[in-house]
C-alpha cells in the first residue's frame, strides 16, 4: 500500500500574484532582470508587459508538491521542470498534478503550472517522501 496510488490527482493550488509580486520576488531572490520589474523595458524587448520570474512559478510547484506530501520541507527530494511559456502578474496560476509512480512513502508527481490554457511549466516531475 502506497501513500498515494498511481493516477491519483494531487490537491494542487491556485494563486493570483499581485502587480508588485515580481518586485518582491526580485528582492527576495536577487534576480532584478528588468523584464520582470520594468514595464517599458519589457515592452521594448517585445513582451506584452512585465512577466513573472520562471523560478517563482517553480517555487509554487515546489510548494504544491511539498504540501501534498505533508508539508515538511524535507519531503521534497527532487524537482525538475521545463519552462515553456511566460506568465503574467494579476492572472491566476493553477498548479495541478498526478501521481506517476508510487512505492510506499516514496511518490513521484507529474505537475503543470498554467494560466488558463497557457502552460507555463510542464513536464515537471517531483520526487517526494510522505511523512
Amino acid at each position: 500500500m502506497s501513500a498515494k496510488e498511481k493516477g491519483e490527482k494531487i490537491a494542487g493550488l491556485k494563486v493570483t500574484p499581485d502587480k508588485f509580486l515580481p518586485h518582491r520576488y526580485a528582492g527576495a531572490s536577487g534576480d532584478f532582470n528588468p523584464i520582470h520589474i520594468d514595464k517599458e523595458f519589457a515592452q521594448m524587448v517585445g513582451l506584452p508587459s512585465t512577466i513573472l520570474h520562471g523560478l517563482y512559478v517553480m517555487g509554487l510547484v515546489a510548494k504544491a508538491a511539498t504540501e501534498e506530501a505533508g508539508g515538511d520541507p524535507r519531503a521534497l527530494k527532487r524537482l525538475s521542470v521545463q519552462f515553456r511559456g511566460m506568465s503574467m502578474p494579476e492572472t491566476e496560476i493553477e498548479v495541478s498534478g498526478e501521481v506517476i509512480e508510487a512505492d510506499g512513502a516514496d511518490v513521484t508527481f507529474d505537475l503543470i503550472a498554467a494560466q488558463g490554457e497557457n502552460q507555463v511549466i510542464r513536464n515537471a516531475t517531483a520526487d517526494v517522501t510522505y511523512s
Partner: protein
Amino acid sequence: MALKTDAVGKSWPAYEYEVGREKIREYAQVIGLDNPVHFDAEAARAAGYRGIVAPPMFVVVYAAGAMGPVLFDPDVEMNFAAMVHGGQEFEWGEPVISGDLITTTTTCRDIYPKDGKGFYVFETESKNQNGDLVCKATWTNIVRGIEE
C-alpha cells in the same frame, strides 16, 4: 554567430553564501509558504531542525551568486538578449538552516546546438560548512538564433 563551446568542462571558483534568518523569512513569505518552520526557531526545533529552515527552493538565493559570473565569462560568451531559462533540476540533501555557510561550485556540463538554438547546461553543487551536500542543480539556458 557560431556556437562557442570552449567552456565545456570548465569549473569556476567556489561561491560562499551565509544563510540569514530574515532572508529565509522574506523568501518563504513571497512564495506564500506558511509552515512555521520557516519563520519560528522553536517550531523548527520542535520539527527536528537545528533552527529556522530554508524552503528547498531557497537554493535560488544561495546558488545564484555562483551562476552570475559564469554567464558573463568570455569563454561562455552567451547572447543575453536572446536567452531564455529552458529548464531546471534540483536534487536536495541536508536541509539548509539559518546560520549555515553554503559553498557552491559551478561546472559547465555541455554547450550544444539544436534546432537553431544553443543549449547551455551548467551544474552547481552546494555544500554546507560540514561538507554535507545540500543541493545539486542543473541549469539549462537556451539562446535563440545561432548558426549550426
